[in-house]
């Protein structure tokens, strides 16, 4: 199926709205309604720009407030800003995959639990390959390199496996991804707990924390954040510049139209779920590397955090419109808010409420702005 076919095939059914169809198409391969496309494109870009402005305003606001409190704008210290990025890195990676899935009109509620399973399997492999039980208990890992390599591979394969399962159930059994992933989240979590008896995997080599999780590239850039940003750049490129990205948004915009245009929707959806799974595996590696431990009791709200970041970034929950840049910025907002509120010593219970209110307000204003624009 080539791009030409998509653009040259006359639409058999009228797409739902012109705005939606415009959202996924690019000017060079969508001659019809080009002006509308340009408008939508610029608006879509604008969501990220507005969000970026909001983030800058937030940073300046917290900077001033922290300066009033501490005499210097501690919030704007490079270390603090980078630690915000570092703490957002995991959700950022998950939000990348979620951007594609939501862009294609699907959801994945299983990411947090799949992440736990992937990290547990990876940790078990690392400990088993690293050395004999006696050796690892004494902090000695004769096969350290191999262990970490295999562990990382395991995490990615495990994530991809759950993604494949999600995708197969969604496409073959034709169930809503919302329900399917809700089910597989329980499945993944259950297996992880069975494997570990709900105790974290012991004797994960510390070297992974020193060598990656706590590593600062060039003396300041946290390695996990750098990895997340590289992934974001690749994902951005794929969404905006390749057929893969185009089809993703086409499916989200109108599944019917995509099928009629000759897109193998099922296969593409399956790929998207596997992609999400691979990113879950990468997030699992970041998790192990940051904590030098698995976190089997955590991650319960990861999928919702990722979805919130994606929606905040201007991706439509109904599919067809997606912004990788927006998702990156969206994943920063809750961490920035929390960080600032802790520095300003706001009572923690208010912090939850403030983050929630700002999330709703941000999405509301974005939506209003878009409605006015069209």
């Amino acid at each position, binding site marked *: 199926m080539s791009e030409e076919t998509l653009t040259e095939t006359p639409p058999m059914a009228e797409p739902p709205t012109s705005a939606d169809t415009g959202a996924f198409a690019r000017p060079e391969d969508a001659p019809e309604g080009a002006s509308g496309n340009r408008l939508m494109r610029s608006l879509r870009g604008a969501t990220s720009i507005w969000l970026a402005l909001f983030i800058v305003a937030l940073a300046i606001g917290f900077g001033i407030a*922290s300066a009033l409190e*501490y005499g210097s704008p*501690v*919030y704007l*210290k490079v*270390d*603090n800003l980078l*630690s*915000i990025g*570092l*703490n957002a890195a*995991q959700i950022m990676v998950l939000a990348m995959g979620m951007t594609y899935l939501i862009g294609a009109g699907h959801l994945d509620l299983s990411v947090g639990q799949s992440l736990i399973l992937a990290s547990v399997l990876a940790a078990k492999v690392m400990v088993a390959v690293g050395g004999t039980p006696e050796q690892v208990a004494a902090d000695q890992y004769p096969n350290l390199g191999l262990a970490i390599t295999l562990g990382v591979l395991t995490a990615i394969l495990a994530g991809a496996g759950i993604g494949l399962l999600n995708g197969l159930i969604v496409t073959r059994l034709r169930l809503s991804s919302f329900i399917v992933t809700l089910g597989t989240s329980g499945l993944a979590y259950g297996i992880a707990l069975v494997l570990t008896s709900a105790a*974290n995997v012991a004797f*994960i080599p*510390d070297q992974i*924390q*020193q060598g990656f999780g*706590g590593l600062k590239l060039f003396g300041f850039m946290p390695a996990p954040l750098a990895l997340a940003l590289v992934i974001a750049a690749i994902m951005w490129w794929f969404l905006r510049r390749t057929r893969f990205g185009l089809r993703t948004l086409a499916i989200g915009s109108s599944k019917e139209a995509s099928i009629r245009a000759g897109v193998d929707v099922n296969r593409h959806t399956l790929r998207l779920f596997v992609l999400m799974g691979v990113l879950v595996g990468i997030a699992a590696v970041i*998790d192990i590397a*940051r*904590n*030098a*431990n698995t*976190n089997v*009791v*955590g*991650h*319960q709200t990861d999928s919702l955090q990722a979805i919130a970041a994606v929606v905040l970034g201007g991706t439509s929950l109904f599919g067809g419109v997606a912004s990788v840049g927006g998702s990156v910025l969206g994943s920063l907002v809750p*961490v920035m808010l*929390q*960080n*600032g509120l*802790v*520095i300003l*010593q706001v*009572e*923690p*219970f208010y*912090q*939850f409420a403030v983050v929630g209110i700002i999330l709703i307000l941000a999405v509301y204003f974005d939506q209003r702005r878009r409605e006015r624009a069209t």
Partner: protein
Amino acid sequence: MKRASLGKYLALGAASMVLAAACSSSGGTSATTAPSAAAPSTAASEAAPSTSASGGSTGEAVKIAFIAGQIGITFYTGVECGAKAAAKEFNVDLNWTGSHNWDINETRPLIDAAKATNPQGWVISPTDPDALISDIEGFMAAKQWTVTIDAPMSKPVELQNIQSNHYEGGKTAAAAMLKHGVARRFAFWILNLPGVGKSTTGVILAFGAITCLLSAFVSNTATVAMLLPTAIGIIAVIGKLLQHRGDVEPDFDPQRLRVGAAIMLMLAYGASVGGLLTPVGSPPNLIGRGLIEEATGERISFFQWMTLALPICLLMFVLSTVAVAQGQPGGGRGVVREGLLEFLLQPSYDRMPRRELFAFHHLVERFEQLAAPRPHSAPASWSQAPASPAW
């Protein structure tokens, strides 16, 4: 309730410890010797002079960041109240925050945020025993003295780790139960059980059974600490009943009741007997089970343990009931066949306090510190009650 009130002490202890460390120029040596949560008031009073000394010279509040583990639960609300009270008392600029879940990924952003404020001390709930090691090592190296609370680290990199003292918690709970009349209510409930109130033996039996059951799941010490006020309540109720019926003088001291000693004995025996019933009943069970499993390679499940322990417990319970109920007026003789244990023990509570001696020893073992009378527990002198001149 137990955790909550304990939390306050815990926080108080933790806060004063960080404070002591932050204030002492010698680098925390005084803090490491500061007493733990078990004696929070001592810790506070020790810390106080150093605060006023350094606080007076600089006039600056000491900045401490408190990263709690699971705010929103009663325990950490207690911790918060304690921490804030201590902060007020010792002129601390306390930055109290915490994660909603016991989740290292929620704790990290909070620590990173607080880092930007450059506090002089930290109190952290380590939501992961490994993950925070390098961070805390960094804090300690930067002389930001760090105390961890509620959970241990896998390596002792912090200044001090403070955790709940369940014995003290049980005591606090017991004192509260006594103060607010919960104990009396519970006592009435026990006395009201069908058949119980009819004889002293019934009371002893019912009370022993409840002690056993509770002790099977709660630590023996905590069980005794919790049920002690109930026991005192029961004795008081019986005393009142006797006074009401005119069987005794109006100014009769209920602690002189024979049944009182028996109930106290039953409390001690019951807790020990019940502790055997489940693997979690008392720590030696778990240790023993571990050793057996290690030696034989056989896994002993919870229920296997219980099936094994139940007959033993029953036998011990019956024996202890017989021993205690022996010598009780009225109902006691109905249960115990006369002369069955004559060779074992003489039922003379008044003259020869052999059993009391034994019981006292037993109780002292469990209540090393409880013997001191408390202002709010009226019959707190119970431990000296039986035949005090004899010793």
